[in-house]
Structures are given as C-alpha cells and as structure tokens.
C-alpha cells in the first residue's frame, strides 16, 4: 500500500540541529520521558548528596528504639522495643552472703559502677519511616542503599553492555572465523550455570563493591551479545553499509559510526533491562553473602533483613526498599524507552 510520505513539520526549518540537540528537542516533547528524566535526575542528585555525606551520612546511628514505628503509625504497639523484664524468682529470697566469698565486694563494685555509669542518649519512639532491628532510620538506609545499588547496577550494566556490544559487533560484522570463535566463547559462558560462575569469580576476586560490578559485568554480557550480533549480521549487508564501503569507509567506521547508531535502540533497551536485572542480582548476591560488604547497606541487604522482620509484622524496611527500587527502575526503563525514540530520527 502506498502511504503518503510527508516530511514532518517541526525541525525542518532553521539552522542545523546536531543529532543530540535534535534528540533533546524530541525528548522534551515527550511528557513521560521528561518526567522520568526528572525522577532519575532526582535519584542521581540524591546519590551525589549521600556520597558526599550531606544526606543519610548517619544511617548507622541507632537513633530509635529497635523496630521504631514510623511516625505516621506512632501509637502502634511495639513490644519488641520494651526491655525484657526477667520474671522475679518465686519464693522468698535466700540470703547466701554467708557462703558467698564475693559478698564483701558487692558494695564496693556497686559504688564503682555508679561512678562510671554511661548515659545512653534517649531513643526516639518513632522514626520518619520506622527503624530496623537496631533502631536505625530506615529512610536513611534506603537512601544510602540507593547509592550503592544504583552504582552497582548502572556500572555493571554499562560494563556488560560494553563487552556484549563490542563482541557482538565483531562477531556479527566479520562473521567467519572470528564469529565462530566468539560463538564458542559465548556457548562456554552460557553452558556454565550463572550462579556457579558468580561463585567462581567471587572466590577468586574477593569481596567488595568493585567485585560485584566485575562479577555481574563479566557474567551478564551474553544476552546483549546475542542480540547485537544478530543486528549486525542483518545490517552488515544493508545497502547503506555497502554504500559506506563503496566510498572507502573503514571497518571500524562502518561498525561503530554507521551501524551502531542504527541499532542503538537494541543496546539501550538491553542496558535498561540489565540495570534492572543487576540491581536484583545484587540483592541475591548480598543475600548469599557475596554482595556488598557488611558495613555497607544496599537495597539488597535491606530486603534480606526484611525477611525476618516481616514475620513479626515490621513491614516498613521492605516497603522502603521496594518503593525506592520500583520508582527508580520504572523511571529508568521509561526513560531509556523515551531516549530510544528521541534518538531515532525516523520515529515521531
């Protein structure tokens, strides 16, 4: 069917608009995209503030009573915070001073203990979004956790995407021997159960944030490799690539200047999926004790702690981590979608 092809109005007039400037114009026109950009930017600002210690610097301070109630649920009973009263022994007290060799010292120890008695600061009964088992502020934890989780998720995804794209482009574009070799590597990687691979890496490299990023990046590139390879096989024989070859463009120019922008939507969508997936993987790794170190907090460690709390009805740690994660990941996914549309001059 012959549809009428019309040049679309808008940026047709006027001076040159670079690819990025044009993309920005298009992104601004996308209401959901702009909103998501704002959300993601807010998260990034939050991360920056927490990294510099301005916000949530004191997340480790035990400011509340254990399992402090959220402020909005102030009067809910909190039996876990009450000091455990050992029941007084039944029956009349028995005086054993006569046979107790330490009896003469009790008075003296009592006096000395009174001299060095510490004053523990008063603990808050409620915290903005509740407290955890030690009375730490869940909100502060969630913010600090966002820093670690997003850092890990984004960097691991970027690493995996980079590896997957470069290898996929090479395999798809050149094919032949190079392609076979990379397919072989890919098959070996996917044949090993993922969790085993992660254990192996963790055992070799040790524990820490950088390890988590490395592990996830080195094990997570296979899916994107496969997709990018398929796209390159398809595009390498397209006429515009042939035309580039005809004018003498080099292999690397054809691979990365000509083809890559045309398949960038695949890469971007995969990147966003990987960020989501890796934030979740970090949870699992932390749960298994291979994730972030014990002195740090991430959404993953929060979720791991939340399991035991949920049984006794303390839902706020789970809610805080989930809410932060859901908002960020949704905004991030929608933003990558909007970005893909904005970067594609063919779509409106």
């Amino acid at each position, binding site marked *: 069917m012959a549809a009428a092809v019309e040049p679309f109005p808008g940026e047709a007039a*006027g001076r040159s608009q670079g690819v990025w400037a044009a993309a920005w114009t298009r992104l601004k026109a996308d209401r959901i995209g702009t909103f998501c950009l704002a959300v993601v930017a807010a998260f990034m600002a939050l991360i920056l503030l927490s990294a510099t210690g301005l916000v949530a610097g004191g997340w480790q301070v035990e400011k509340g009573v254990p399992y402090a109630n959220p402020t909005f649920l102030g009067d809910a009973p909190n039996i876990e915070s009450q000091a455990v009263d050992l029941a007084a022994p039944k029956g009349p007290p028995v005086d054993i001073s006569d046979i107790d060799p330490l009896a003469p010292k009790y008075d003296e120890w009592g006096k000395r203990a009174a001299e060095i008695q510490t004053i523990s600061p008063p603990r808050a009964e409620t915290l903005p979004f509740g407290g955890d088992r030690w009375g730490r502020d869940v909100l502060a934890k969630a913010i600090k956790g966002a820093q670690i989780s997003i850092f890990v998720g984004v960097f691991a995804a970027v690493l995996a995407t980079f590896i997957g794209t470069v290898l996929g482009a090479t395999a798809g574009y050149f094919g032949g021997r190079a392609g076979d070799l990379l397919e072989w590597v890919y098959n070996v990687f996917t044949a090993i159960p993922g969790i085993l691979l992660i254990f192996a890496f963790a055992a070799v490299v040790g524990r820490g944030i950088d390890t988590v990023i490395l592990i996830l990046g080195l094990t997570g590139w296979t899916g994107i490799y496969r997709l990018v390879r398929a796209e390159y096989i398809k595009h390498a024989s397209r*006429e515009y690539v*042939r035309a580039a070859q005809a*004018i003498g463009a080099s292999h690397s120019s054809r691979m990365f200047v000509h083809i890559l922008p*045309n398949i960038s939507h695949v890469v971007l969508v995969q990147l966003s999926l990987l960020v989501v997936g890796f934030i979740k993987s970090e949870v699992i790794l932390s749960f298994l004790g291979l994730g972030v170190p014990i002195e740090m907090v991430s959404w993953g460690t929060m979720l791991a702690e939340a399991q035991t709390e949920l049984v006794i009805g303390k839902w706020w740690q789970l809610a805080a981590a989930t809410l932060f994660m859901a908002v960020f990941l949704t905004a991030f996914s929608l933003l990558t979608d909007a970005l893909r549309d904005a970067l594609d001059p063919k779509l409106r």
Partner: protein
Amino acid sequence: MDANLVSVRDLRVSFRLGKTRIVEAVRGISFDVPENATVALVGESGSGKSVSAMSIVRLLPDNAIVDPASRVDFGGANLLTAPIDSLRRIRGKDITVVFQEPMSSLNPVFTVGFQISEVLRLHLNLSPKQANDRVIELLTEVGIPEPKARVDSYPHELSGGQQQRVMIAMAIACEPKLLIADEPTTALDVTVQRQILELIARLQDKHRMSVLFISHDLGVVGEIADRVVVMREGTVRESGPVEAIFADPRDAYTKALLACRPRLDVKPKRLPVIDDFLAGGGRPIVVTEDRVARPHEDKPLIEARGLSKIYRLKTGLFARKSIPAVQEASFSLWRGRTLGVVGESGSGKTTIGMLLMRLTEATTGEVKFDGTDLLRLTDAQMMAYRRRIQIIFQNPYASLNPRFTVGQILAEPMKIHRIGASDDERFERAAALAMRVGLAPDSIHKYPHEFSGGQRQRIAIARCLSMQPEVLICDESVSALDVSVQATVLNLLLDLQDEFAISYLFISHDLAVVKYMADDMLVMHDGAIVERGSAEAIYESPQHEYTRRLLRSIPAGYRPARG
C-alpha cells in the same frame, strides 16, 4: 459490458497518523467497474489507487477512516456499511484479490494445494477429495506444469512467476465476479510479466469476470485494460475507454505520464517531465533533438576480461557445489559513454557492478582501470581508486544511513578521501552539491527520511559526485522510482554526464530505460553475456534468441490493432 458490477461513489479515505495528524489519501473519487471488462487504476505512488481498490473489500489498515458518505455498490448493497459476516462471504468468493508480492502473500509453511483448497472448503463446502481435484484443475488452468506434482509443493519451491500463478488460481477458485489485481506483475521479470498478463486476459475472457487492475505502468495498462482511470493525489484526473486515454488524452497529467516514459523509437536529449506539462498549461516544451553519444576515445577507461564469480556451497561434509553468478564476462567501458547491462533477476548483472567496485571479490579475471588491474590491488592501494568508481544503489530508502543528516552523508566521503581542508569547507561543498542535483540548499540539515524517493536518489547521486568519480555504476538506480520521477533523475544523470564526462555502467531490468540511456549494451542471461554491441543495433536487430524474447516482452502500451 453493459451493467455496472461495482460502482464506487464519492469515496473518501483518510489515515490517522500519530495522535493529531490525519492525511487524506483518497479525496472523493467515483468510478464504475462494468461487468465482463477490465478496468485499470493508474497512478504513481501516493495517488491512492491501492487504497481505493482495497476499500471495495474493506481491506484497509486499522488507522483508515472511510467517510460515511462514501458508497461502494455491489449486488445491491453498500459494501462499506455491510455487516462483516456478509462481507466475508463476498471476500474470496465474489471479489478476490491478487497482491503484488507473491512470495509474501503465500504462507510458506503450507503447500500450495492446501492454500488453494482452503478457499474452496470455506466458500463452496467441497469435500477434501473434490477440493483436491478442483485444485489440480485450477493449477492446470493457470498453466503450472505438472499440476499433480505441484499440489504438494511449498511456495519456496516455485519460481516467482509460478507463485503468482498460484495466487491467481486461488483468486479464480470460486469463479469470482470481480478480480482485484494490485500491481500483480510489478515484482516479476519482464518475460514472466508478459505471461501473467496474457493469463489474466485469457481468464477474464473465459470466465467473463471483471478485473480491476492496479498499476503504475501505462505500458502494461494499455495492453490489458478496456477502461482506464488515471489517479493523482487521491483524485481522478481522467477516466475513459483505453483508446481515448492513449490516443487523445485530455488531462495534462495523463499526457505527461504518457510522455515521460522513455520510448524505444526516439532518443531525445532530455525526457519530458510532469512539470513541463502542468506548468506549460498543456503546451509542453518537448525536446525533439536527438541525444548524441560521446565518441569513443583511443582506449577504453575500464577493460574487464574473463571476469567470473563462482559461489561455492557446501552440500555435504566434503561435497561442494559451484554456482556461477558471472561467467567469463569481458567488456569495455569508454570515457563519457554509457554501457547498459540488461537481464532478468539472477542474470548476474548486479554482480558485475559489485565486482568492479570490489564490493564482491571476483573469483577470476581482471579489471584494467587506466591500465591498472583493480583486482590485484591491496585494500590500501584500492582506496585511491575507490573515489574514481562509484555506485548508486537501487533502493534509495536503504542506501542512505538514516542516522546521518544529508550534510554528513555528503561530507563523509570527502573526509575519507581528504577532499576539502576543513569540515566547514566540506559542508559548503555539500550544500553546493545538493543544489547541483536539484535539492534545496537547506536540505543538508535534514535526515533522509524527510525526503521522497526521487530526492533520496538525488542525495545518493550527490554523495557519489562529492568524490568527482570518473565511473558511476547505476545499479537499477531508477527502478524503484515513479515514472515521472524516473524521468527527472535520468535527465539529471545525462546532464552530469555531459558536464563531467562520467562513464556510466547502467544496470537495469527495464529495457526501455536502458535503450534510452545506453550507448553500448550487454545482454546477460544466467551469468553469461549473450549479446553485446551498440544499443541501437541490439534493439533493431537482436541476434540472440534470448534478446529477441526479452524485446518481445516489453509492454507496448495501447495499440489500436491489438488482437
């Protein structure tokens, strides 16, 4: 042909694009399809001819809006408002459709027999045995060899022409009253096209059905139609009996369409284009002066000898099968002259261009360019020659990188070959080139998708010109364009040849275009050159049997004395 089988009245169809935009594709057209007659809808892309025809059976995309005042009367009912159930009884039985692309219209996972018998079982309630017999009868009727064996073939086992025959068999299975044929021969080779046209004409006559034939090609239409409806931009420009349209066209657009197609008998310096007719108020300025070819120089610019390309397929663990794409091709290309290469699909004509460019590596042979054998050069040495030989591909929609602006597309080759001192200078040159090929100077800031097919092909031409090539390979470069646009692009190519003495290797399946463009000619068949010589000589006295067959197949348009 007395009563009207279908009458379309005041048909308006719009398409919803995006959230707010509505584009009107058909703007209130009316026409009739009489009984037992062939009516042709002719027009260029975007004229609304397919949309009009598909509206009859309501096979429109979901975003189409048909104006409620439109009417399509068939058998006493308005098909546009008929309930979908009764419409489904009509579709495939009383009104059937044959589409352009037989390959994608047939389901690849079912045998052709199954697909034809499906129609019979749906509409006529035949038993499987009866249906099978009828399928064989139909396949015989549409001229498929060995119909009994072919019933169980899958679509990919048939050639393009045979697939289209299967589609036609499916369409006539229930003895329809109206057959809608939407560009049924456009995707086919010219010799196959001839057979399909003859088949449709024969079936129309035999079954006394009506045919609504949609085509962009007036040559084809003139051969098959009884009545012609010329459409442009959603309106009917002119309609009438075929002899009136061809012998005495009233409308300026119809006149232009008839004139801008290259003809076999004359070779004017410049082809008439639509604007000549529409702007001149029906009094076109027609150039009648003949085009003169540039004389041969002492030595050819390119001399190819024994050029072969053989593909080897693995057919077993050790077994290899050789498939020759080009065998022992030898030819010369002279400076400032055009060498036409004609042949049908699979004849190896495109491979020849690829071999010259070294976009495909030749198996054997040599290509002497100014005395240097291109095929022996290393990639680095080849770079110097890359800019001297350039290629324009067939599909202007695919050959431009959609992520580059026109400026970037034009500046890139200059950058690679270090033409121009700075990026600014290159962009200045790009703007000048854009103007030279007839684009607006500000187009260098736009993206390819903002241009029409003809404009894109101009961009592709400008990209080649940016390197000031001596040889330009035009690989079916105008085949995807509308006739009127084709004429303007061909005129541009001729002007450029005059100006820069560029040699063209003009590859096309379209014999009329090659006849117009070429000074010398090669005819290819199954990878071999079967005939060579000057274009005039080949067209006037073809020596090879295949060449004669090709020339006989060219749609001749309307001839008063057709039988």
